[in-house]
């Protein structure tokens, strides 16, 4: 079975997940992103690469932040950007996901940026496009269920490389609600593919997915032990609906045992960086003193995110 995001020549046709992408493809994306960071400093923050192309932001699950960064990236590439926030109620009126896609294809779409609550939804779209012979239309997964958020994973790798230069000698910890996190999965695949020798996940057993160690990570339930000597701390967002109930007793107890505080951060290396995909729950997964402190690289992540998304869009559109 061919990886549906690669074309016949092994080039990138869609970006659906980092799982299974060759290392040189990941490196090429990071290398390509570098010159795009400079564009933000220009008088005219615009490149003509996607001039005349139509990028559809297809958001079946609302997310202002992610949609905005994709919108900025596409607009800086001179694309026409059309935002569609499709609530599940309108799809339940009878039009299926693929009906929507077919309609937009008829409007000469060139690229779909897809956010969906169901894992695998962007694969369904990519497979449908292939079945229809629409190979010129590209799909970028902007987050599907718990499965993947590849551009977030890539921008995190860009950030790590920016501060740490090499991946080959790092210890990286991913902390919090790994079970429900598409970000965590993309980070784990990216880190292991790029050769990080030790990737750890830290969290209570209710938030660590079954057999996650088979993805190449070490599991810690004690945060201090898990943070010992790490170079990079990647915090995850804890969704409100998970904070109380059968997964966790309360946000307070979670913060006490798994929230990142300056005190716990002392277990990490002195030059450790702290990352968060945003939006943060201050006082739940991260203390404000850390979020705003010298180790945090959370805002640079956002800036790099635009360059990484520009790079991905350019590489796909030119393919």
């Amino acid at each position, binding site marked *: 079975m061919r990886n549906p995001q690669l074309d016949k020549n092994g080039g990138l046709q869609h970006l659906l997940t980092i799982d299974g992408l060759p290392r040189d493809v990941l490196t090429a994306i990071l290398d390509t992103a570098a010159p795009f960071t400079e564009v933000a400093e220009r008088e005219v923050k615009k490149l003509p690469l996607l001039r005349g192309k139509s990028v559809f932001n297809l958001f079946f699950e609302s997310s202002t932040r992610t949609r905005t960064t994709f919108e900025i990236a596409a607009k800086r590439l001179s694309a026409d950007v059309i935002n569609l926030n499709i609530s599940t109620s309108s799809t339940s009126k009878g039009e*299926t996901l693929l009906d929507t896609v077919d309609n937009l294809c008829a409007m000469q779409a060139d690229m779909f940026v897809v956010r969906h609550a169901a*894992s*695998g939804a962007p694969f*369904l779209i990519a497979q*449908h496009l292939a079945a229809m012979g629409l190979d010129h239309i590209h799909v970028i997964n902007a987050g599907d*269920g718990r499965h993947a958020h590849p551009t977030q994973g890539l921008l995190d790798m860009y950030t790590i490389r920016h501060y740490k230069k090499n991946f080959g000698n790092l210890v990286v910890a991913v902390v919090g609600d790994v079970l429900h996190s598409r970000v965590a999965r993309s980070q784990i695949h990216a880190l292991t593919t790029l050769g990080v020798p030790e990737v750890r996940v830290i969290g209570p057993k209710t938030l660590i997915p079954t*057999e996650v160690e088979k993805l190449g990570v070490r599991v810690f339930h004690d945060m201090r032990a898990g943070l010992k000597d790490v170079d990079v701390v990647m915090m995850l967002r804890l969704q409100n609906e998970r904070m109380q109930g059968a997964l966790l007793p309360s946000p307070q107890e979670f913060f006490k045992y798994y929230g990142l505080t300056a005190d716990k951060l002392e277990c990490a290396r002195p030059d450790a960086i702290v990352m968060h995909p945003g939006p943060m729950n201050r006082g739940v997964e991260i203390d404000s003193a850390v979020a705003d402190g010298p180790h945090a690289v959370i805002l640079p992540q956002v800036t790099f995110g635009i360059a990484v998304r520009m790079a991905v869009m350019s590489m796909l559109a030119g393919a």
Partner: protein
Amino acid sequence: MKIHIKNGRLVDPANGIDAQQDVYIAAGRIAAVAAAPEGFVANRVIDAAGLVVCPGLIDLSARLREPGFEYKATLESEMAAAAAGGVTSLACPPDTDPPLDEPGLVEMLKHRARHPNFAHVYPVGALTLGLAGERLTEMAELHEAGCIAFGQANMPVVDTQVLMRALQYAATFDYPVWLQAQDPFLGKDGVAHDGEVATRLGLSGMPVSAETIAIATILQLARDTGVRVHLTRISSAAALEMIAAARSSGIAVTCDVSINHLHLSDQDIGYFNPHAHLVPPLRAGRDRDALRRGLADGTINALCSDHTPVDDDAKQVPFSEAEPGATGLELLLPLTLKWAAEMRLPLGTALARITTDSARILGLPAGTLTVGAAADVCVFDPHGSLRVTRDKLKSQGKNTPFLGMELPGRVRYTLLDGHVAYESRP
């Protein structure tokens, strides 16, 4: 109509026959085997040279989708699929719309099935009204209308007190109860086996304990009530061990497995293939291997297709939203042969699991070519093959994880009550 099937390799597991013997059919029954009855003059001679002649297959789970889901499949389309698959008897689960919870519906189904007359249809009646798990159905009335057992299809009985009473009531009349073991809470959100694949794909996992906890409950209640219980479509090695232990401690329990779980594991979900979304979920490779051994050694009594035709609209959605199930009537024989070949089993042992052994669970004197039995016969070419494509499938459901595969065996003739219900060219 008198039919003479000659030169074939007769495989009749119930009678321990695997030899080149002719079969003689008259008045819808097996008139003789090996030697012709005196004065037998055939209206039709079927030359079965190079072919296998065996009892018509018996499928313990085939959804015909009527009433209520005619847009997914109809009796006509699915019974044609049964005949094309060599299946002459099938049990259909009660999860129609409305469910088979009143005698009128069962009578109507039996009546409707008589018209295409491609297979004997044995409804499994609903154990509770509307399959809601709250009130008992009129089991005795349903039984008179033709239900051969009672069950809940894939719907749980959440309240164990209701379950216990349903089993007690069924035991009163010695009706068998067929249950799919899935804990209603642990099984609530899961769409894939809780393991590496689900973790990797970000699919909600269903732990093996969803099955084993339900089995533990059912076995305990079976012991207490003395009901004959049949566990449908078990999925895990752990379930198999529990059933074997229960049986050796004297509990009357039988079980079956589906063709999908016999051949596939969660790895076959691949890139979110919605055809691999099944209930119960495809489990790990080691579970599948245990099921394959369990069916071979008889711990698992029978193999079924778990035929569930689903319309394309319900499958062309993201994996977790896809309606579970796979079409299977036409794949039952090929996948039995594939399993037998891979396990190096005698053909008779393998065919027993879809003929005489399933007949025993149905409580019917079918699945054999004994003289005097109904002439339900399947004649197939063991060296032929079936390429599973949308075009080839007669079932209205084109949904199967085996789509695109080449499978062994090709049905050449299906006889129902001594009439040719299906035949194909060599």
